[in-house]
């Protein structure tokens, strides 16, 4: 049995990442889950959050904006609506987005507005978390 996992992250815009890694931890809809080599086939919906993976001694982080994950034959495929590595993230913009979203949540009247603002806030927080790790 192979002792490595092949991780691939694709979004509608581009293929973000395709690497051989040791362990993947992804933000599942029902909680975070980890994937080690030899994992059984698994399909899962992802929420907005942080995806981590370890390569040798280094740990790397990617912000994932929701999507789906599939584990099959030591291969993890992430189909994300959007995904950004730390170097892609614009810290200032993300901070501004967080403030804007917070303001909107405070002001929002109806449910749709609120849900939308909350989603934006989650995305901003995920981005900031990744950016600040670096």
């Amino acid at each position, binding site marked *: 049995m192979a002792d490595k996992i092949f991780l691939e992250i694709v979004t*509608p*815009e581009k293929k973000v990442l395709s690497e051989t890694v040791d362990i993947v931890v992804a933000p*599942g809809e029902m909680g975070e889950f980890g994937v080690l080599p030899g994992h059984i086939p*698994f*399909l*899962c*919906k992802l929420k907005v959050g942080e995806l981590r993976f370890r390569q040798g001694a280094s740990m790397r982080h990617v912000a994932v904006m929701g999507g789906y994950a*599939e584990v099959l034959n030591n291969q993890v495929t992430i*189909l994300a*609506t959007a995904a950004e590595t730390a170097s892609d993230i614009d810290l200032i913009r993300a901070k501004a987005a967080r403030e804007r979203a917070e303001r909107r949540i405070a002001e929002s009247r109806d449910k749709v507005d609120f849900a939308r603002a909350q989603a934006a806030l989650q995305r901003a927080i995920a981005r900031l978390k990744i950016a600040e790790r670096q």
Partner: protein
Amino acid sequence: MATLRDIKRKIDAVKKTSQITKAMNMVAASKLRGAQQNMEKFHPYALKFREFIGRLAAGVEDTSAYTLLTPKEEVKRVELLLVTADRGLCGSFNTNLLVAAERFIRAKKAEGVEVTLVNAGRKARDYFKRRPVNVRDSYTGLLNKVAYEDGRRIGGSLIERFESGEADEVYILYSHFINIVKQQPSVVRLLPIAPESQESGQKGFEYLFEPSHEALLTDLLPNYIYVQVLESLYQTCVGEQAARMAAMENATNNCKDLGRTLTLTYNKARQAGITKELMDIVGGAEALKK
């Protein structure tokens, strides 16, 4: 016969036209490169998505639980999403698509099925504006920059129509990109979804699903439509640029040919003029001698 000056003017005009077409050819070539890159970047996503759906749908025995998978018992009204370019000057690219659309509508009408059009592209909108076809909606300016949001908007409206029963089937007509010199108008049924069947060898796997098989599939199916719409937009976009590049290359070549023939005529006329003048001079000199 045209005078020397007329021919000269024509030569200049042809030359200028060829400069323009040459420039348009180069613009199309560079846009083509960009569009092709975008399409290739999107391709892995679409491919994986199709695999996902195939795998998920393979495990479903009773499709009636999913509206988007269930064929309607009676098909009376269908909706067609017609994707064309916004601009012309790309040879027969748009015409091919419009002719294919006309053919589709006629075939459906012959079966007693009513067709409603949704136009994506200025050429489609303009063409069907004055024709006896039901047009529900028209979008323009999509191909300048294909965006995920557009796929979601258009796909969402199509799904809504299907779910509400206003359309029993939904088709998409777009330009399938085969290679740079070949694009093929093709019709694909979007709804109800017919997932590509998986090879039977794959069935041995038992998947774990989270949250659940049903929830995942319900969530994925609409997204699948968006992906399909997006992919056809990408392909049409690449096809448009490729077609324009070819058309402009043709135009440039034709200009060159025309220029050559005109220059020949010009030189002949000039020579004839000189000969005539010489004859006059010689004739005059001969007359003086006597």
